[in-house]
């Protein structure tokens, strides 16, 4: 029944080549193609400053999308991340403005903890309602999307919530604008979140359970996995990722408005899907997701730098990309 070993090196090599999972490699190939395209369109695209700038701007979506990778690999979906980002940002700024604790640095540190707490809590609500209430995640997070957005608008009295203290702003700003060993801080944060996400998803039993639940919930249950707990936890991770993204976002403008995070959910899901994660669950690719977030930002950047497509069409181009990505995924899968 067993195959014989390949007789020649050439066949061995051919087999190894065929073994490479194209769905895992495709996003990185696409990113490389975009780089070449960008360089051809406008040489200034390939400049270090421009690239770092693009990466920095992609950080919100990249960080949120790492969380979305967990939710989607477990077979869920979270549409509320954009509204959640606005809510977390709003509450964080209100807390910072309250000046409840002496010392700006302590205040800021506690503010970050508050943000993460709010994010985790908002995620837990999504997770609890989908699992305990047994409601489709699409519906649940559509509901919480409206709720989180609306609460933010109410907190902001229909306007915006801005950081009052200039000292605090100056202290906080480097989190977005600063650099460390030549790389912008947000890029470091993407790397850290990516590493942590990949570690959890690929190396821990929780990560294995996430994939199992997304692959086939019944099999997971019959294998003694706490399906609901795993599911809910992915939403909490998503909430924490949103909070981390907010911590990078707030110092950029120092304010949360009623439109903060608008359509981020679509961009995050797009990044996850073009990164090679299966929308039906069971496959999760953290680095593919981050690569997908970069691609979205790079496409926009190339369009701005080029003269032949209006940048107002960025959304349309991103839409085309997600559809092409799905078509490519499907053909690759069929081959395998």
């Amino acid at each position, binding site marked *: 029944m067993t195959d014989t070993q390949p007789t020649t090196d050439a066949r061995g090599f051919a087999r190894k080549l065929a073994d490479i999972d194209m769905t895992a490699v495709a996003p990185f190939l696409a990113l490389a193609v975009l780089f070449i395209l960008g360089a051809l369109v406008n040489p200034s695209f390939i400049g270090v400053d421009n690239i770092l700038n693009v990466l920095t701007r992609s950080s919100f979506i990249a960080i949120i999308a790492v969380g979305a990778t967990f939710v989607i690999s477990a077979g869920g979906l979270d549409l509320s991340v954009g509204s959640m980002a606005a809510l977390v940002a709003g509450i964080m700024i209100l807390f910072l403005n309250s000046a409840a604790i002496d010392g700006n640095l302590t205040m800021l540190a506690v503010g970050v903890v508050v943000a993460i707490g709010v994010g985790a809590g908002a995620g837990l609500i999504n997770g609890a309602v989908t699992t305990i209430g047994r409601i489709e995640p699409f519906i649940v997070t559509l509901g919480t999307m409206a709720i989180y957005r609306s609460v933010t608008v109410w907190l902001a009295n229909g306007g915006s919530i801005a950081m009052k203290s200039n000292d605090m702003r100056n202290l906080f700003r480097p989190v977005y604008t600063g650099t460390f060993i030549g790389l912008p801080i947000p890029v470091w944060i993407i790397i850290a979140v990516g590493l942590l996400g990949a570690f959890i998803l690929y190396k821990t039993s929780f990560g294995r359970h996430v994939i*199992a639940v997304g692959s*086939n919930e019944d099999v997971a249950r019959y294998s003694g996995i706490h399906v609901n707990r795993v599911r809910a936890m992915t939403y909490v991770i998503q909430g924490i990722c949103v909070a981390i993204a907010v911590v990078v976002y707030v110092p950029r403008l120092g304010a949360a408005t009623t439109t903060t995070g608008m359509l981020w959910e679509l961009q995050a899901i797009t990044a996850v899907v073009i990164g090679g994660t299966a929308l039906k669950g069971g496959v999760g690719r953290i680095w593919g997701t981050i690569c997908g977030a970069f691609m979205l930002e790079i496409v926009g950047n190339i369009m701005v730098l080029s003269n032949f497509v209006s940048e107002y069409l960025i959304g349309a181009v991103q839409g085309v990309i997600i559809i092409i990505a799905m078509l490519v995924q499907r053909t690759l899968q069929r081959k395998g």
Partner: protein
Amino acid sequence: MSTHPNPQQHQPPVLEARSIAKAFGPVEVLTDISLTIQPGEVHAIIGENGAGKSTLMKLLSGHLQPTRGSVAMDGEDVHLAGPVDAEHRGLVLVHQEILLAPHLTVAQNIFMGRELKRGLMVNDREMNRLAAEAVRKLGADIDPTTPVSRLSIARRQLVQIARALQVPHRVVIFDEPTASLTPIETEALLKVIRNLRDQNVAVLYISHRLPEVAAIADRITVLRDGKLIATRNASELQPVDMAKLMVGRDMSKLYPEREETATRETILEVTNFDVPDYARGASFSLRKGEILGFAGLIGAGRTELLEGIVGLRAGQGQVKLNGKPVRFHGVRDSMAAGIVYLSEDRKGKGLLLAQNLRTNLTLASLEKFTKGPLIERKREEQGLDKAIAEFDIRARRRDLLAGQLSGGNQQKLLLAKMMLLDPSIVIIDEPTRGIDIGTKEQIYKFIADLAKSGKSVIVISSEMQELIGICHRILVMRSSRIVGEVTGEAMTEDEIVVYATGVKTNEAELYAAGSA
């Protein structure tokens, strides 16, 4: 009654395979198969899983195109462009898998794609009437307005057959039609097939179940490893001979030597266990080293009762393990207590088909392969090495996905997965469903060895022969109740059937038990 050797030999065969071959990539799965099917005959194709039966059927019904050779009808080569083209020529395939829309009614499914109309509107009344009639012809009584999702698997199968037979047909190909049917439903289906034969329809019949083949076939063709081993008149072949031809060796020792491994020590005692809608007042005990069988028709509540006991579904009643009362709130609890349950639905509930062997193997016992939160890949790989050797899992490559394994190897992988939990009680639901004979033998041996090593085994099976072959004692369930127990000499197919169908249940006894 199957004395129809090559009827109407003078006619050209209605369907014929002429040195047909099929390759997928470099692998040739069928080599030079030639066979004929005459009108008014039942021609059975038998062979182990992977022998090429399904591929042959797909070639003959237009689902696949041959790499070499040709298909002929009425003596002339034809090119079957696809299943629709085949149907136009009167060639109908009844699929093994159920391909029905679950939310539509029986009648809507039977007429899907060829709805009867009255003006612009569909003629539901007429379709319901004809559907009821079609189903009745198959020996079943199903309300044509019932949604298919509310039917048992066996009844869905009948609806599927009724649907296929709506097409004007000269050749009907049945691909393992009885895989999910009970003996009674099987008998009804065989009657339908005999009817078809009497109407001069040619029937190609694929099955694992050799006694059934012996009962229905006029001629039998045996495939092994993609090659045609023999075509014989059914009257010349006993099931034992068929098995021998299929596996290429003597199969008289399918079941291991029965050993009295059961001790006096009771390990599990279940009293008055209820699973809402499925099981009522079930009481039984299991001894250490015993192999206990659960027989009964599909839908009798066997699976649900045992799923209830291990905490996979809501149930109530007293369960004592080693004399101590226990309560399992979820399957994790029962696993921790040393009871594992292997689902009959290997593909849906047993294995992650889209994941590799390693992931599947360690899924239920991951904590044995972790250090802190970290999974130790190397130990997982070692575990897989061990499982492959111990359970004789045959995978072309280690990195295959579970879904790419044959049914037999999937079952072995599932066994390996659950045995990693080091259980003292193993519950196996339909241990050999969809598995070739060679692997069956291995599984029976494995179950016997489990008992020999002091573990207790509960086997749920619809194959009475297999229960009789390996169990020390058999409980029979009917309509949510345990209605009988057979042991020793009384363990015969007849004895079980009378309990399972209610012919013999001592009704007074049943009422007494119910009121207790």
